[in-house]
């Protein structure tokens, strides 16, 4: 693989290879000198055309701990806000001699498009409502560390599926690793066309969270993405919480050892109650530290070896 644009770019074996490297990287986080020289002399640019805290900072730290030079460019404060096209911005940056480009963009397919314009390695850090492959990798890595092999495990993904790139990447990644996936959402937030896709990809859909929870080995709560919602997808926040939030009452339906994931940022009280977010079985913070290790592994695998 030259780029990481979609989970479809990686095989199950490659995913496990990334996880094995990530496990080594995890140890580096506990060291006094958090530095490996593997990417010395490489330059990685983080181009974020959408707001982000954890993805951007974790890519930045991951690159720096591997000794790459990391530069951040965000849409606000760059020439993009003066009306420069994405193509011109990307070509300008790459003309400076960049080896890796980490890109987040509100348009689905942006990373794919960019990879066709440049020679640099492109890593998709979220493109619109399409994919967010490193998030899926870190989620699966976190779960695998907790539960062992995901083969045959039942993972429920709950929430705003329509607007979620995390859900799309996660379905691809988890099924690739042999997990049984059920996605749960209110009918208004179930993506159109999910019927044929779920049949082809082999995952289940449901409108009834209370029915799915008791059988789940792990749950992933998704953020309700208010910024992408133009119309009325549900009557009120309260109504969403009653039907699809992981509330204190619902927590009792879940097995006490089933990990609870949330990609963050959390809307506490909306899709996830504080009781669930702070429960012993919540792995939200583990996801963050895993994210760093997985992103180091991805950068290492894509950028350390010989140039193809």
């Amino acid at each position, binding site marked *: 693989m030259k780029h990481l644009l979609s989970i479809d770019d990686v095989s199950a074996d490659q995913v496990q290879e990334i996880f*094995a*490297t990530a496990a080594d990287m995890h140890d580096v986080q506990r060291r006094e000198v958090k530095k490996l020289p593997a990417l010395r002399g490489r330059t990685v640019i983080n181009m974020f055309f959408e707001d982000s805290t954890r993805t951007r900072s974790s890519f930045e730290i991951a690159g720096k701990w591997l000794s790459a030079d990391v530069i951040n460019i965000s849409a606000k404060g760059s020439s993009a806000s003066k009306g420069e096209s994405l193509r011109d911005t990307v070509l300008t940056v790459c003309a400076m001699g960049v080896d890796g480009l980490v890109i987040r963009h509100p348009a689905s397919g942006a990373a794919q498009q960019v990879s066709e314009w440049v020679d640099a390695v492109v890593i998709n850090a979220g493109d619109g409502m399409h994919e967010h492959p490193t998030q899926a990798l870190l989620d699966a890595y976190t779960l695998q560390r907790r539960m062992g092999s995901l083969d045959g495990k039942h993972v429920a993904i709950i929430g705003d599926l329509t607007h979620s790139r995390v859900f799309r990447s996660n379905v691809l990644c988890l099924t690739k690793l042999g997990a049984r996936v059920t996605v749960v959402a209110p009918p208004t937030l179930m993506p159109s066309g999910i019927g044929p896709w779920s049949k082809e990809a082999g995952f289940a859909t449901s409108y009834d969270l209370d029915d799915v929870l008791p059988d789940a080995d792990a749950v992933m709560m998704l953020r309700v993405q208010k910024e992408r919602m133009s119309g009325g997808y549900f009557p009120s926040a309260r109504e969403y919480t009653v039907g699809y939030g992981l509330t204190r009452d619902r927590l009792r339906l879940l097995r006490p050892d089933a990990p609870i994931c949330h990609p963050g940022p959390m809307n506490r009280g909306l899709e996830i109650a504080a009781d669930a977010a702070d429960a012993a079985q919540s792995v939200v913070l583990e996801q963050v530290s895993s994210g760093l290790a997985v992103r180091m592994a991805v950068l290492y695998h894509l950028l350390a070896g010989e140039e193809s």
Partner: protein
Amino acid sequence: MTDAADPRIVLDPGDIARALTRIAHEILERNKGADDLVLLGLHTRGVPLAHRIAERIRAVEGSGVDVGELDVTMYRDDLRKQPTRRAHKTVIPPGGIDDKIVVLVDDVLFSGRTIRAALDALADLGRPSAVRLAVLVDRGHRELPIRADHVGKNLPSARAERVSVRLAECDDLDEVTIS
């Protein structure tokens, strides 16, 4: 299909065992005992060798010696020239390596580049009071000013020849061959 040159056995299991016993004794003699010793095996075959030497030290001194594993993949100077290599685990004993006598253990000493990488890796992990090097085979052809303190066998070889170390832990038998 057979190779043009048939592999010739240079060390058999008995030779390897004797060489490791001698290295263990040399390390103890040099260090005047097992105090503050940390043996770090270099992946892949340095790791079982370090464990074997540690066993012998335990047998002689009666007290244990710390053993760890060091992976130098990320520190190699030829990373960029090869397809991405899988890294292995680095395991440092709980006592750390600060102010310890670290003995790096590897199977073959050749160009010296692996040891250079290992010295860089050590510098990121702590500050040993001294670093020494024990190898099963020294085949010459150094490209850097590096030498071993303890050598199982000096094996003069041509640069193009291939020295293979097989160990029961990884390969089901003990032998060193040259071809």
